[in-house]
């Protein structure tokens, strides 16, 4: 797009990137541009090619086809140590034989920055990540979250055009990960550096990013802001992978405008909004309904306004505070539906074995052409 222009609004532009390993295409003809100073995430399941893509950006792999331009300069043939990008590795790769300060100073030393200046820069980096006294510590004296921040500081002190992050939170424990999500986002806006962040955890991508690319089998299925991906998925894969959801497989029986009548494999008839191609009569489709979109009621009447209605028995109450759900067993076929309990606390007294009515609107059931075979995603049931 902006190719050829002298000054670009994009820090990073990739065009038609392809990488093959033997006969296997790990990254398949991907193009994208990342605006200056934004937080860009690449979200996809394990093995979809995220790391491969990132390593091409860092220069550890040469693309088979396509071009990578950073600040409008092609990176083809530029070795990793000459690229204006830095990378935060999955396991951080902090140098264990050096102190924190030496770690941060490493890149500056390589650039031949004078000693005195290095000391100043290192200290200011430590200040900015809120660890002013960590300099003389050994790496193994730090907690997981502190290491995380040091790894980022080690890169940012070099003032890269683009910072690459390969699932940097993967190794942290649950609580810390929650905390670091918020912190990382804040660091990014504070430094103003462009972040390219890869993860297979949708909540990380959603919480932190300005833009998210959902990747699958070496291609980007959809690129957009988090709300966009969550509320308007363009493909079955995105619908299944981003956010929790219930999924039914079925065959289209009839259509009327974007409204689709589907007979599911387990014998229900559901009405959904068809999206994209492949929701014509006779097509095999997937239907997705988010657990929070399903309305609960003790009586069938209250749900009369809904296009889809079911009755079922509570199989399991998965109490989790504000995030509680129930597993409702569908009487006709034994299939299960996951439903989020309303925050109002209205159904807090539900117990396993009770009967319940469920319903959801046409607009909240999304119908997509079925994914090719294997692909699954993150559906709960």
């Amino acid at each position: 797009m902006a190719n050829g222009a002298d000054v670009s609004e994009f820090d990073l532009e990739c065009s038609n990137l392809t990488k093959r390993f033997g006969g296997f295409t790990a990254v398949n003809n991907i193009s994208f541009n990342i605006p200056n100073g934004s937080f860009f995430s690449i979200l996809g399941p394990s093995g979809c090619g995220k790391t491969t893509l990132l390593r091409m950006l860092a220069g550890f792999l040469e693309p088979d086809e396509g071009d990578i331009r950073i600040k409008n300069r092609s990176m083809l043939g530029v070795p990793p140590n000459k690229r204006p990008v830095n990378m935060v590795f999955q396991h951080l790769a902090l140098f264990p034989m050096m102190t924190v300060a030496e770690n941060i100073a490493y890149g500056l030393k390589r650039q031949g920055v004078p000693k005195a200046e290095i000391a100043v820069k290192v200290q200011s980096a430590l200040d900015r990540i809120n660890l002013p006294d960590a300099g003389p510590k050994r790496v193994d004296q730090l907690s997981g979250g502190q290491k995380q921040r040091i790894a980022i500081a080690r890169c940012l002190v070099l003032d890269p055009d683009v910072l690459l992050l390969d699932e940097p939170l993967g190794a942290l424990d649950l609580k810390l990960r929650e905390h670091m999500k918020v912190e990382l986002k804040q660091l990014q806006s504070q430094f103003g550096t462009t972040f390219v962040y890869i993860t297979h955890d949708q909540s990380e991508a959603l919480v932190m990013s300005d833009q998210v690319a959902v990747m699958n089998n070496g291609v980007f299925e959809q690129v957009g802001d988090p709300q966009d991906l969550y509320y308007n998925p363009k493909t079955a894969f995105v619908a299944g992978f981003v956010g929790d959801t219930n999924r039914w497989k079925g065959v289209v029986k009839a259509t009327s405008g974007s409204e689709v009548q589907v007979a599911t494999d387990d014998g229900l008839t559901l009405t959904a909004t068809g999206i994209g191609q492949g929701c014509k009569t006779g097509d095999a489709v997937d239907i997705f309904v988010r657990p929070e979109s399903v309305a609960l009621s003790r009586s069938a009447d209250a749900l009369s306004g809904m296009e889809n209605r079911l009755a079922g028995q509570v199989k399991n109450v998965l109490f989790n505070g504000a995030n509680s759900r129930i597993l409702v067993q569908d009487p006709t076929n034994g299939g299960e539906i996951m439903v989020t309990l309303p925050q109002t606390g209205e159904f807090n007294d539900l117990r396993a074995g009770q009967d319940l009515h469920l319903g959801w609107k046409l607009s909240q059931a999304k119908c997509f052409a079925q994914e090719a075979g294997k692909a699954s995603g993150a559906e709960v049931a």
Partner: protein
Amino acid sequence: MKLGNSSKLGLLLLMAPLLIWLFALILLPHVDMFFLSIREKVAPRVYQTSMANYMEFFNEPLYWNTFARTAVMSILTTAITLLIAFPISYYIAKMLKGRMKAFLFVLCLLPFWVSELVRTFGWMILLRETGIVSSTLQWMGVVDGPIEFLYTDATILVGLVYSSMLFMVVPLVSTLESLDDSYIEAGYDLGGNGFTVLREVVIPHAMPGIVSGCIVVFMLSLGNYLTPVLLGGKDSLWFTEQIYAQFITRFNWEQGAAFGFLLLILSSLIVWAGLKLSRQTLSETMG
């Protein structure tokens, strides 16, 4: 991943030391030794190619008796060392923690840090007829005359087992340490007792360590010279002694080379059989 494209030249440079080492110091010398071994001395300064030196080994009971004796004693040494070392290694690896563990482990290494000659020397001082053991026994009144403990097969075993201990303890301790306590606990938790857990969990896990320890101990015993010579006295004829004798006191390099080769082949066979029996491979156990 490859860091940069390490060129063919770089690879070759990196490989050069290995190739020089293996070819100039291991492979070619053995090939040459083989050629020497098939050279028969028919008269002073007259040689011809033949297997005579090998035939000599099989025709002269003295030689293969010595060989068999050496092999049997080495296997015995290996077995005894394993039996003694296993409980010790287990104790160090699993029953001790922290400082005591490190201390005892280092203590096990102690004899190794001192040369074999010194160790054997110590045994000689202890075991000779006028030595400490004999004198102590007399002083305690257990025996009335001095006893010679040196120069018997048992003494050789004592010395060999002593020298071998380290090479058994180290691999055993490290494999046993790598066995997480929770496997043993799980074994008990599921109803096992000391014996069954040992047999079904601990020993299978320690197998690579056991095998590598056994190989090293066996080879070291087979190839030992000092201990049998110094502790063995008049009845000990160790096969290495035969090889040395051919080289040093008989100046018969051809025969010595043939013996060397036989030792190599037979020891390889035994090690190979051991590996097969225990279903291990050399690179797994040693590497």
